[in-house]
C-alpha cells in the first residue's frame, strides 16, 4: 500500500517568549498514513495535534525531522504538495463577504481548476453538503454547522487525494456533528486519505482506521482502534445486572481470561437474586486513552472548554 504521509523525527520547538521558556510542542514523532485510510490524531488540547498539521501543510517550519507528503519532500517540494492537499483548519475561515458559491469558486481559482469545471463542481459540492439553498447566502449569514460544511467543501473543491481535518466537529451541535461525520465517512469510501485530529474519543473510534494518541508532543500509542483496545485490556469483563431491594437494580462486574468462568463468578456474586441482564464488555477507546496516558477522559473536554 502507498504511503500518503511519512514522518520521521518531526519536532517543533517554539522559541521562548514573554518570560516563557521554549515550548517543545512536537517531540520527534514518527508515523505513516496509508493511502485511503482515515488516520486519527487523538490528544488533549495542547498535545501537539495542530502544530503537527501546521508543519505538514506548510504553515509552519519544522524545527527538526523530515516528512514526505504524497511522496514529495516537505522541505523541498512544498508548492507541489500544497496543490494536492486540502486543509480544513479548526476555525471555519472562509470569506464572510462572499456567498457560499463564490467562496467555492475562489478556492478553485486559487488551485487552478479549469474555468469550465468551476461552476458544475461548486454546484455539486453545494448539493453534496446540503447547501444548495444557501448558494447565494454570504458566508457570514450561515449557521455554524453550515459554515463548517462549506469550509470542508472548499477544501475538497480541487479534488485533493489527501485532506487534513483539524477538529472538524468541535463546537457543533449534535445533529450537525453527526451529519459531518457522515460526510467524512463518505469521503473515505471514495478513497480520499484523511488525516483527522480530534479530542473526541467517540469520533476517533467511529471514523478512524488507525489512531495515534499524542500527549505532550509525543506519540504514546499508534494502532488500529481494535489493536489499541487489545493493548489496553486482554481480559473481558462480564457485567450482570440484578434486582436489588425496593425495586432498585444493582450492577456487578467481574473480569477474567475465561468468559464462562467469569460469568459464573459474577452470578455467584448475585447470590440468588433475580438476574435482569448480562453483558460482556469490551474496552472502549476511552479505556485505552486513560490507561495509556494516565489522564482522565474528561480532561479532553474540560481543557477544550477552557480554550
Amino acid at each position, binding site marked *: 500500500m502507498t504511503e500518503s504521509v511519512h514522518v520521521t523525527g518531526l519536532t517543533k520547538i517554539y522559541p521562548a517568549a514573554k518570560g516563557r521558556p521554549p515550548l517543545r510542542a512536537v517531540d520527534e514523532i514518527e508515523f505513516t498514513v496509508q493511502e485511503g485510510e482515515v488516520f486519527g490524531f487523538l490528544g488533549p488540547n495542547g498535545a501537539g495535534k495542530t502544530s503537527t498539521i501546521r508543519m505538514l*501543510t*506548510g*504553515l*509552519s*517550519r519544522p524545527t527538526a525531522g523530515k516528512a514526505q507528503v504524497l511522496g514529495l519532500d516537505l522541505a523541498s517540494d512544498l*508548492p*507541489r504538495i*500544497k*496543490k494536492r492537499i486540502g*486543509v480544513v*483548519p479548526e*476555525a471555519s*475561515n*472562509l*470569506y*464572510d*463577504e*462572499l456567498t457560499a458559491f*463564490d467562496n467555492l469558486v*475562489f*478556492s478553485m*481559482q*486559487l*488551485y*487552478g481548476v479549469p474555468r469550465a469545471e468551476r461552476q458544475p463542481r461548486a454546484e455539486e459540492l453545494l448539493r453534496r453538503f446540503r447547501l444548495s439553498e444557501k448558494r447565494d447566502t454570504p458566508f457570514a449569514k450561515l449557521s455554524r454547522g453550515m459554515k463548517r460544511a462549506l469550509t470542508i467543501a*472548499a477544501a475538497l473543491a480541487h479534488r485533493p487525494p489527501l485532506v487534513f481535518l483539524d477538529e472538524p466537529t468541535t463546537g457543533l451541535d449534535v445533529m450537525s456533528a453527526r451529519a459531518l461525520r457522515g460526510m467524512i465517512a463518505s469521503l473515505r469510501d471514495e478513497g480520499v486519505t484523511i488525516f483527522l485530529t480530534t479530542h473526541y474519543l467517540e469520533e476517533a473510534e467511529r471514523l478512524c482506521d488507525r489512531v495515534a494518541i499524542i500527549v505532550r508532543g509525543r506519540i504514546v500509542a499508534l494502532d488500529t482502534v481494535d489493536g489499541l483496545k487489545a493493548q489496553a485490556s486482554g481480559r473481558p469483563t462480564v457485567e450482570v445486572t440484578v434486582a436489588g431491594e425496593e425495586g432498585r437494580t444493582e450492577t456487578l462486574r467481574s473480569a477474567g481470561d475465561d468468559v464462562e468462568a467469569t460469568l459464573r463468578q459474577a452470578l455467584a456474586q448475585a447470590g440468588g437474586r433475580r438476574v435482569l441482564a448480562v453483558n460482556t464488555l469490551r474496552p472502549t477507546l476511552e479505556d485505552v486513552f486513560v490507561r495509556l496516558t494516565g489522564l482522565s477522559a474528561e480532561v479532553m473536554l474540560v481543557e477544550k472548554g477552557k480554550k
Partner: protein
Amino acid sequence: MLCDDLRGMFYIALKDLKAYYFKAPNISWGILFPFAFILAFAIRNPGDLRLLVPGLLALTVLFGTSSMEAIVIVFERRIGSLERLFLAPVRLPALLAGKLLGGMAFGLTVTLVVLVISLAAFGAGGTNWLLLVLALLLSATAFSAMGAFVSVAVKEVFEAQTLANFIRFPMMFLGGVFVPLASMPGWLQILARFLPLTYSVEALRAALSGGAGRMAWLDLGALAAFSVVLFWLAVHTLARRME
C-alpha cells in the same frame, strides 16, 4: 510555479475588490475625503485652483490605495482567512502582490474619476500623458505597498488605522500638497525627501504642466524605489509573523 503565482495574484486581487473595496462607503469616502481637504484649503487660501490638482490627485491615490490596504491583511489575519491564502499554492511575494494589486486597482479607479473631473474643469492642454500614467501607477504601487507594510506590522485593525494615519497625515502636510516644498524650512525639506508623497506630487505636477525634465524621471525612480523597499519589508515582516 510562476503560472500558479500569477494566477493566484490575479484572483486574490479580484476577490479583495469584490469582498472589500467596491462598496459604496469606500468609493464615496475615497473621492470625498481628498476633495474636502483641497476645498478647505482653497477656501482659506483663494488662488489658482489649477495648482492644487496634482496634490488632489496624489492625495486621492494615497487614500484610495492605502485606506483599505492597511486594514485588509490584518483583518483577514484576525479572522483566520489569510491562512487560506498561505495554504494555497501561491508563494508569499505573489500573495502579497495580489493584495497590492487589489489596492492599486481600487485607488486608480477612484483617482480616474477625480482626474476626469479635474480635466473637465481645467482642461487637459499640455499634459504629458506618459508621465501622468507612470506617475499614477508608481504612486499607487508605492502607497499600496506602504498600506500592506502597515497591515502586516500590527496585530489589530484599530492599530493599523492608527499607524496608517500617523504616517499619512504628517505626509499630507509635508509632501508639498498644500505648500510648495521650496517655501518650507530647510530641515522640513530634507524630511519631505523621505516621504513618497513628495515625489508623487512633484511627478504629477510635472506631468500636468507638460514637463518631462530629469527631475520628473528622478521622482518616478524614487517612487519605484519606495515601492520595492516597502514591498520587501512587507513580505519579510509577514514571513516572520507566520512563524
